């Protein structure tokens, strides 16, 4: 059954987040031949519309207003609801990001609709679309179906591959004028805390440190490795509790769940609560002084040694590799 699917294209620092392209790929499966409508909301975002089309959207609706320069639940709810009322879609898809997590439940409630969050796989099984998602931070998975329409979905970054970019695709881009009324929450300021602009939850490479990193200073060594790999730094609960880094970097059952292509665990013992947050990474490397550390049980490759010796060597070796292939 063909469905009309809306995908929110999330804009961050002037670019469409990669997870939005992945959401379009999910939409392609869910639409079963129906139309995919990309939506962009912001102050000035129309120039990004073709990106959504290159990645598989059939057309794009743009809602622009100076009140939409920052994400607020109220502003974006008003903008997206106006699009939903015009388009009457069967499904709406978001990235499972700070924006998607905040916005999707509100839109779902307005539509008296179901929502499956944090989806890692979408498949058509007979009459149903089946959604797979992790539970207990990836200690288990569930498959869900949705019992009515419309419904909403958020997809976890890095799991559903985006469609190949096709710059020959074209589609209509329309602006929808929406009067943004009172915002009940006002953003006074946004403080950017990321060093290299790579998001932990979207990063293809994560370099994570545990208590073995020993200090905030020690994390700089890990940052260097993350930088040469174009990745992000994360941490275990132990490292956060010890004050070596910010809680926003914590990976585990409390904290973020990440599934990068490459996870490098440095000085992390591998407690069950940490492993829950990273064990579904594609390739895991463990660097630890203790050969008995649990982390080696789930690592694809392990080096027994002092991270302060190993990591700088690794940085050098990767620089050499990058120089030789470029």
């Amino acid at each position: 059954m063909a469905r009309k699917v809306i995908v929110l294209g999330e804009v961050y620092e002037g670019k469409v987040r990669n997870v939005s392209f992945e959401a379009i790929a999910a939409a392609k499966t869910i639409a079963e031949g129906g139309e995919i409508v990309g939506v962009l909301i912001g102050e000035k975002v129309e120039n990004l519309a073709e990106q959504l089309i290159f990645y598989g959207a059939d057309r794009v609706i743009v809602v622009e207003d100076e009140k939409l320069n920052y994400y607020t639940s109220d502003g974006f709810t008003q903008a997206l609801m106006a699009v939903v009322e015009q388009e009457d879609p069967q499904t709406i898809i978001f990235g499972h990001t700070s924006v998607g997590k905040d916005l999707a439940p509100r839109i779902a409630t307005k539509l008296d609709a179901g929502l499956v969050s944090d989806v890692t796989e979408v498949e058509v099984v007979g009459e149903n679309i089946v959604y797979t998602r992790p539970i207990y931070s990836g200690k288990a998975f569930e498959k869900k179906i949705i019992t009515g329409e419309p419904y909403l979905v958020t997809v976890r970054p890095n799991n559903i591959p985006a469609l190949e970019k096709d710059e020959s695709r074209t589609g209509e881009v329309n602006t929808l004028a929406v009067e943004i009324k009172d915002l009940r929450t006002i953003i006074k300021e946004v403080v950017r805390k990321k060093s290299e602009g790579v998001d932990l939850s979207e990063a293809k490479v994560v370099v994570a440190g545990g208590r073995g990193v020993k200090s905030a200073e020690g994390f700089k060594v890990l940052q260097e490795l993350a930088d040469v790999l174009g990745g992000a730094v994360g941490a275990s609960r132990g490292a956060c509790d010890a004050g070596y880094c910010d809680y926003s970097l914590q990976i585990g059952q409390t904290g973020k769940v990440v599934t990068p292509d490459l996870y490098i665990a440095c000085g992390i013992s591998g407690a069950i609560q940490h492993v829950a947050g990273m064990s579904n990474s594609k390739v895991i490397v463990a660097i630890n002084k203790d050969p008995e550390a649990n982390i080696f049980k789930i690592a694809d490759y392990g080096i027994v040694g002092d991270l302060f010796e190993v990591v700088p060597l690794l940085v050098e070796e990767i620089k050499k590799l990058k120089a030789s292939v470029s």
Partner: protein
Amino acid sequence: MNIYVLLKSTFDTEEKIIIEDGRIADDGVEWIINPYDEYAVEEAIQIRDEKGGEVTVVTVGNEDSEKQLRQALAMGADKAVLINIEEDVEERDQYTTARVLAEYLKDKEFDIILAGNVAIDNASGQVGPRVAELLDIPCITTVTSLTIEDDKVTAIRDAEGDEEHIEASLPLLVTAQQGLNEPRYPSLPGIMKAKRKPLDELELDDLDLEEEDVEGKTKRIEVFLPPEKQAGRILEGDLQEQVRELVKLLHEEAKVI
């Protein structure tokens, strides 16, 4: 200040997940207050201690959830409410929980409602924002700092690592993120006092709701464990060689760099 906290009981983070007959086994499992809800309870107690008023913790659960409610009371909450719908509603999801909570809260005179931003079991993060929308009050999710002066609220929201500094007014719903505070352990006198604090139990009937009003909109059809990870290769040789080998393997075999 009339403060409500939405709380969920979850498996302890140390628990392994075991599947029996297609379901997640919970025999002998240690239950805890969902860690993010614990931040909400702590914040509520701190607000009450500063501004006066009352903290009521509410859960949608079953008879076993009483233990976590008692723990919240032992931390310092004043009253607890257990809404037990286990026997009334067969198909439950976050839609169900939010509808039930909102129905309970709609005629209460709340100033602020606190909840965890996500539960560590089903991890959908829907209930807080859904309840706010049903009650038609603003909502700030994943908050790491909260200040209330009269009816003005300033909060810091964790947005993928960025900090959003937000202003809003009461009444308001806030969901707690790690870093908001350091939850206290219940003291012995606190535990003794908690036994005498009021804990009401409600059912669907008491809220004038029917099963079909709150029936879930999504349905679990299968639950499974991820494939067990095989231990990989521990590299050997001197460190320099190991590192060279590792980079080669990551580049040529795993193809991730």
